[in-house]
């Protein structure tokens, strides 16, 4: 098999206060995959993705991106390969205009002139934000901010796009736009979320993490069909969905108190 885009072996991580955030993580993601990373709040999802681009360094174990180990001399190349899209787009859009923000990454990579323009134009076109180029980020809608922050990451031509809770705060229409955008991007994707339906919609494969350990890894539809697994890790499909699937209606059949 080809070199995985992300290869994590035996990764442990504890915060300075001793809290164990990650324990014995093994994870492979291959080129072209679209994987959901599921887990309750505080499971270690964000800590794990911060290891992928070298913001956290492995205390034990190794993290490798397309064959390149995450170590200090490789950091700039690692950060080009792993494009991180943060949860709050306001944290990520810090330049005065949309165009300058999309240019930020490629410029750090040393691009200038026609090559820079081409990169930036292609990234903005792929997320349909070209018409926002001269706008100030603080005057965009939330959905627009989300897509611009993705364009800023895509302009670095990453090998894997890692999105932290991309659907949070999106209205249904923006959520649909995001889905279209993600499905249209030709890049390996890791989507961190606790939105199970979104994982099912977008990702064929899911990884469930709880209390710093990977507890399940398989086809999304199979994991979501396993009610016991979900319940054991504080994940649950929306009750409305279960009702549609034939679960008893609590309003029509109130539980009897004897």
């Amino acid at each position, binding site marked *: 098999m080809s070199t995985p885009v992300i290869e994590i072996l035996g990764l442990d991580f504890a915060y300075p206060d001793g809290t164990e955030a990650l324990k014995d993580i093994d994870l492979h993601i291959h080129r072209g995959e679209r994987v959901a990373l599921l887990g309750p709040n505080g499971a270690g999802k964000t800590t794990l993705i911060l290891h992928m681009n070298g913001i956290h360094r492995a205390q034990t174990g190794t993290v490798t991106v397309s064959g390149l180990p995450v170590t200090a001399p490789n950091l700039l190349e690692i950060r080009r390969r792993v494009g*991180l899209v943060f949860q709050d787009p306001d944290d990520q859009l810090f330049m005065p205009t949309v165009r300058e923000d999309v240019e930020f990454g490629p410029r750090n990579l040393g691009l200038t002139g026609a090559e820079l323009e081409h990169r930036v134009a292609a990234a903005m076109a792929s997320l349909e934000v070209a018409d926002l180029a001269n706008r100030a980020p603080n005057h965009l809608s939330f959905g627009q901010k989300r897509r611009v922050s993705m364009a800023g990451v895509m302009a670095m031509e990453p090998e894997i796009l890692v999105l932290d809770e991309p659907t949070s705060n999106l209205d249904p229409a923006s959520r649909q736009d995001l889905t279209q955008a993600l499905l249209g991007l030709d890049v390996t994707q890791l989507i961190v979320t606790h939105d199970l339906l979104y994982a099912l919609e977008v990702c064929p494969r899911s990884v469930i993490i709880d209390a710093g350990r990977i507890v399940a890894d398989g086809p999304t539809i199979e994991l979501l069909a396993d009610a016991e697994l979900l319940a054991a890790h504080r994940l649950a499909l929306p009750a409305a969905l279960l009702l549609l699937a034939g679960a008893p209606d609590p309003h029509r059949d109130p539980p009897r108190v004897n």
Partner: protein
Amino acid sequence: MSSSHRHALFVHAHSPVHRLSPQVKIAAALIMLGAIVSTPRETVWAFVCYGLALGILVALTQIPIRFLLGRMLVLTPFALLALLFPVFGTDPKVEILGISLSEQGLWDMWNLLAKAGLGLVTAILLGASTEIADLLRGFDSLRAPRLVTAILGFMVRYIDVVVGDLNRMRLALAARGHQGTSIAHWGPYGRAMGTMFIRTYERGERVYLAMESRGYAGEMPASSRVKARPGEWAIALVVVAAFWAVAITARITR
């Protein structure tokens, strides 16, 4: 789009002044300020000349007079202070409308009002005709330290976010019955400010992480410097030279 699209000091128009490159406008404004400030206060005619020239520029820039006057209100505290100069100034005194006023104080008042007023009009001209992103680019083109322009940029970018946070916190206080009508109610405001400080600090950390994630290694990337056309510098030179001609003549003929 609504006016919230732009900063409050900007006037949307398609004037020749708007079209000038930002670095030209910034440089011209600074040099014009130098001329105004260095003019001896006794040469009243020189200030009249500046006033007329700025008036023409304001008209060219299509700044509404109401907007200009509104912006000039920031001068009020200084004007009030200046009004005290003639009253408390030293001898000799002159009699005006039956009030004995210090001659020296009157000149001081005139000096402050004329220079601050004209300087303010110059600054308003610059702000009203240049968007903030362009101002930052202009300073960058003039080789201002990139760290300084970056800090200014971040300030402009995040001021709305911070004010938004603050407003939500005020709403949250009010929604649970907090009233800010007396000093006894100010405690929660103090704690809200403390929370704001911590939140802003945390946001700063997250922004830094986001910068690092896109390859930031301690230096902001150079923005694309747009060269000003030689013609633009020539136009600015004419205006600036006129101001300095007045200033120098005033100094010689004083």
